[in-house]
């Protein structure tokens, strides 16, 4: 990295920030103030304009804490959102552990729409059920490795931090490696352990999740206006499909049933049959037809012959016929 060359201060509207990895390698972060993105309208709620920094080329193993530390000089970071293609917006959590979080997130997400979660309770049909709470799987402090060259949004607490962050620093910063989250071999060891939680926690998680799921199902059922009757479920758990629900659906909603009239008329099937039965021209009625057919066969024969010949000719050109 020769000092004779001048490091650009701006690249396509981004400010490059040099981050020293080691004495001889420097990583470049590109930053820009966040402007309302075109595609996601709801994202604007998440990224308040004016105090959100848009970050490009985030190191693949960066954690929220590391980025927070990196921008400490500029101001206090409220949260960091990594947005790769595969990552969801729901990463606005306190820890950056997605693997473990996923299961948990689902619950939280749904909770967000509802009132405050309350203590889990047994559901019963007549009493108004409480919203069950999902017991999350234990989380471990492991890193998430993202694809390289991805972007992130850093939301500062204070709008003034943004401008400070955007001014290029005088000298390259060092990468604040967070030693509390493991990297390398110990990361894999930790991950291995994290993926094998104690059995009782697995059970608690699965049960509570299912409780919530059933609660949601029941609620959905209640909310759905277009429904008539109650589904008939037999002892084996099979749902009987019968006509009589709303909008041509089965009782209790769900599957659509064909109307009686439709079934009786067999309109569709008849139409297809008719198509098939359409009398075709007799193929060998006239002498010329027989003639043409034979002629066509001969032409096909010849064409195939010529194709073969062309093929062989081509092979010949590539000297494939010299056995040795």
């Amino acid at each position, binding site marked *: 990295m020769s000092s004779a060359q001048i*490091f650009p201060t701006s690249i396509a509207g981004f400010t490059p920030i040099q981050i020293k990895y080691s004495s001889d390698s420097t990583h470049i972060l590109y930053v820009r103030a966040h402007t309302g993105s075109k595609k996601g309208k709801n994202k604007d709620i998440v990224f308040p304009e004016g105090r959100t920094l848009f970050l490009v080329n985030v190191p693949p193993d960066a954690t929220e804490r590391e980025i927070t530390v990196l921008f400490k000089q500029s101001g206090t970071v409220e949260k960091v959102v990594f947005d790769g293609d595969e990552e969801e917006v729901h990463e606005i959590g306190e820890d950056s552990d997605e693997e473990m979080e996923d299961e948990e997130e689902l619950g939280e997400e749904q909770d967000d729409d509802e009132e405050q979660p309350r203590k889990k309770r047994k559901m019963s049909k007549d009493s108004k059920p409480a919203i069950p709470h999902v017991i999350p799987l234990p989380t471990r402090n492991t890193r998430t490795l993202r694809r390289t060259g991805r972007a992130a949004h850093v939301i500062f607490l204070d709008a003034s931090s943004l401008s400070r962050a955007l001014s290029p620093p005088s000298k390259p910063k060092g990468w604040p490696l967070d030693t509390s989250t493991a990297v390398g071999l110990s990361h894999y060891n930790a991950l291995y352990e994290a993926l094998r939680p104690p059995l009782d926690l697995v059970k608690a998680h699965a049960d509570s999740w299912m409780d919530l799921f059933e609660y949601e199902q029941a609620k959905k059922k209640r909310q759905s206006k277009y429904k008539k009757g109650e589904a008939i479920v037999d002892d084996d758990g099979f749902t009987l499909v019968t006509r009589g629900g709303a909008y041509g659906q089965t009782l209790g909603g769900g599957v659509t049933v064909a109307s009686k009239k439709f079934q009786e008329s067999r309109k569709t099937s008849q139409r297809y049959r008719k198509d098939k039965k359409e009398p075709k021209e007799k193929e060998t009625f006239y002498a010329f037809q027989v003639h043409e057919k034979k002629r066509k066969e001969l032409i096909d024969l010849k064409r195939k012959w010529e194709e073969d010949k062309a093929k062989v000719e081509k092979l010949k050109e590539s000297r494939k016929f010299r056995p040795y």
Partner: protein
Amino acid sequence: MATERKRKRNNETGTNGLKRRHVTSDKNKQHISDDVSEVTQIAADVFPPLVGGEDEDEGSDSGSEEEEWTGLDGAADGDVKGSEHTGSKPKKPPTGEELRNIKDATELYRSSSFKLQIDALLPNVHPKYERFAPLDRFLHSLYSFLHSIPSVEPEHPLIASRRLLKKGIAVPYSAPQPTEDTNWKVSFTKPNEVTVVGSWPTKLSVKAKDKNPYRVDVAVEMPAALFQEKDYLNGRFFHKRAYYLAVVASAIARKGGELNVDVLFDSVAGDSRLTTLVLRPKQGLKNDWSKLNVEVRIMPTLPSDCPIPLQRLSPSRSNIRTLTSEEAQEEFSTPLYNTALLLGLTPRAHLLRVYALKEAVPAFADALTLLRVWANQRGYSEGGKFCVRGFEGKGMWWAAVLDLLIHGEETSGLAKLSPKRKPLGKGLSSYQLFRAALDLFARHDFTQERVYLKSEGGHRFLPQEYNTHEAVFVDSTSSVNLLAGVPMSSLDMLKHDAKLTLETLNDGTSAAGSKDPFREVFLKDLRDLQSRFDVVMRVDLSSAKPSQPSPHATLDHGSPFNALIADLASKLRSGLSDRIKALAVLLPTSGPRSLSQAHPSNSPIIYIGLVLNTDHAFRLVDHGPPADDPNPANVQQFRDFWGDKAELRRFKDGSIVESVVWDVKNVDERAHIPFNISRYLLSRHSGIPSEDVRGWQASYDSTLRLPESIASFYQAARSATGFKTAMTAFEGLIKSIKALDDELPLAVLNISPSSESLRYTNTFVPVALPPSLSSILPACARYAPVMDVIIEFEKSGRWPDDLKAIQKIKLAFFETLATALMKSVKGLRATVVVGDGVSTSEMQDVASLEIITPDGWAFSARIWHDREAILLDKIIDDKPHIPKHLKRKLQQTSDSSGAEAKERQEAMETKALYIRRFIHAPRHHRAIAALSHRFSAFAGTVRLVKRWLASHWLLHGYISEEVVELICASIFLGSDASSKDRESVPGTKERGLAVVVEFLKDWEWENGLFVPLYGSSESEITDVTKQPSLTGGKSGAWAVSTELDPTGHMWTSNGPDAIVARRVRTIAKASWSCLQEVEDGNFDVKTLFVHPTEHYDIIMRLDPSALPRYYQNITADPSVWKGKYANAVLNGESKDALKPGFDPAQLLFNDLKRVYKDTLKIFHDPFGGNLFGAVWDPTLKESRPFRVLGGFSSTPVRKDNEKGKDKSLVVLNTDAVLSEIERLGAGLVTSITVQV
């Protein structure tokens, strides 16, 4: 037109003046008389001129006949009815003649393209006769020169030879050599006749292998006056012949300036009785034919009026009387000696016969050419490489085979001979004749049935007299057995090769992806040892000492070496009996030697190749005659044959028989039995020390075995190992899970295995790691393999109708199962694994149950719920009733929100995984397990191939284990799903590997590959979709389809991509040439598995002691665990609990591959490789404009001055990436080397 062609042909025949003169001077003139023109006319009609020859007619459109011809080529010229054809080429219906040509091509040949290919091949294997005018001039001068050699007065043979020795010429007297007290004399007078014989004058010469020159045989007829009646005795004829040859040699050598040639001796098959003179052109001004790649061979022949009585040369007569009393001698006949003598009479007769055949049968010449090309490609001829013993100088035999097919056999008076084959007649096409010949080779039992060609005079010698010959194929003069001296084993090999070829020809023409049969049959060199033979042995004969030397056999065979080879071949053949299909003794062709060397020198190195009959090859016991055999000679013979290996044993059925038992210690050694038998027999009968017999099987075995020092840990712990044991453990697991039925909410319907370890195809033999063992193992050998199993519960409506909920329910099931299992089975450990650490999808099946049995077997169970597929389908296509084209429109108009598209994408990935994991994997497992049982070498082949691919850093990361299994299966199954086992099935894993390497070397993966894995019954279901789809935009370049996977991307969708596929081809090519080194004798199996690292941009070194799989590394260094072991005990760290399936190198590899997907291509050896190699994406090396989601770590291009145009160019930040990798691999990666 036909007349014009005829004239041309006549001119051609006329150019070879010498030949014409001698042939026409013969009494058999009628063969080439007036009807010659008729024959050529027929030939011209039946065979249209070669493809190229039709060009002359192109463009002419006047005259009805010519117009017909244009039809073939004139497709390009304008057309009248083009409008009714959609094709670009306008068409006219073919005319009558054209039609006849096409029909002939399709009906008389395998297919029309096969015929065209044959037509294209033929000109390339014939000499271009029109260029050989200088040779003709040379032959003329040779003719006059030979007639001008002055006579030499009769002299004692030894005195005469001494005189010639002074001139530097050693007379090649054959054994028994003349002695001082011989009372006959040798002399020279000018030859009666000089004739060009052999294949040259009949224009049947076929290019020889390895750029060997064409041969022009010149028969020099010695005057009858030189011979006496008794010359048949004791090699006197051969001595006179040798002297005659030596005089000619000295004359040519002395006056070489005139002829300008090098003169050499050459003995056919190392037999000095059949020595010929080889004349090779020197460069010079006069008569320079040195550029023609041709040599002239002078062979002295006997005149028809020679005084030697032919009756004395009958095959059963004895004509060497040097030993003991004459009565004793009479018992030993000298068939080969007699044949060698008779060969002096036949050249002219054979020439005439072949000429007659050629003229009478239009397809004869082409058929013979095809047959000889076929034979050359398989080493049944002279050549630079090792050739099958016995087929040197057997040119006439191939013609005689066709003669047999065309004209049939001489009937013999004996009723017990088999019913006569019907002659096939003259009207066959060249391909049909060729095929008939192969059919003959494949079916004819040369040991039992003798062949006497139809001859004019009937049998010359009584058929019984040929009892002394092994195989009998008497020529059309009824004097010579053309197969004399050909070992039976070589004929077995011929039979095997013919069967192979017929199999190729019978393979469906349509099956896509199958090999091109034409290429297989004619264009491919099939002399490679390792892919041809199951067992290859390199035998050094230099210290061979036959245990029962037979001076008589030596004399009959012409030299001790030849006698040794013949004896060795027949002993091996009878010793290996039904264990082998064929056995080939391979020797280099004897080359010409200088005139000062009287006798041919033999290379002491021979190769022996075995083609095993896998039904019997690995039998442990050979049974001999019973102890109470009525004929005690049988018992004695058996004992003599096997020596101290033979012993009397009582068997279960109560019989007491002589038997030979071969001890084996393990499965690997069982595969060595045929090799061990051969080695034993070679040492017992030919006195070859066992260290001089070299095989490579054991070295291949060792690549699949763990290092000794690690294996000893397992042995010490008495740990359970082996595929069978693993399967028993699996059965046990099923039992204990099924026993829990009451405790589970749903009954377990099925538990199916889907692991390499449970279908015999894991590279390493599965091992159990009980806790007692895992704690003492060094850290770099503590990898515990996990076996995948799939649990299917009974169907129930209680499953939630939601993908995410299904995954959660699975967790609950696992928990219940784990608790119940741990309660019921003591010592069993079960853990729920909630994810793989990478996937974040909630609908994907990520959870599994890890079970470690008390014995230490680790299993990973997953639950298959079939409702998932339907739910996924709903997400992927939620409106199945809307036709596709409407849907596309809908998608265009409505802006499908990102979330929905993303969900669909996710569902598609999940579906692919679901289908692979739950539908295809178990089915694949069953089919592969069945193949492992059906073909003894299959599992071993797969294991070796996996090891080979892994050591070249391709397996797992880019090539899935399953596709390796499929490719290996295709080698064993061929392309047609026939239940019959094929002739080409490899009998050992070594050959399997060689065949797979050869396949990968030549495979044009663009065309896909079809593997009939599931047998014919299931194939009918999807017969329509049999064609593998051509590779489209998918990331997988290989398309390996089966009946149940018509697109062929089930196991290849994650690679190899085109880059890796090309890499595979390159590596296969390199390995293939490495396999060829076996012929130099310095082949080392290890080199096949050594991966060159110089092509990688970056090499990352991993700390071997941190890799739990390091002990599996092919070049594992024992000091790593030996040094570490002492420390490890002290470190509390190594006391960690067993982590089944934990392989940080693989995890790091996966992460790097994912993180730097668009930056790097990274490779490693999944079996404990301690190196990662990576190459940069070459397109990133150039600077490019900055993009927000560039997908790689970039750095701005430094500008040289501030005023540089601001294009915002960025370039890959290699240093930062390397630093990141170092960080990601902390604790694993020790160093990163950048190679430029």
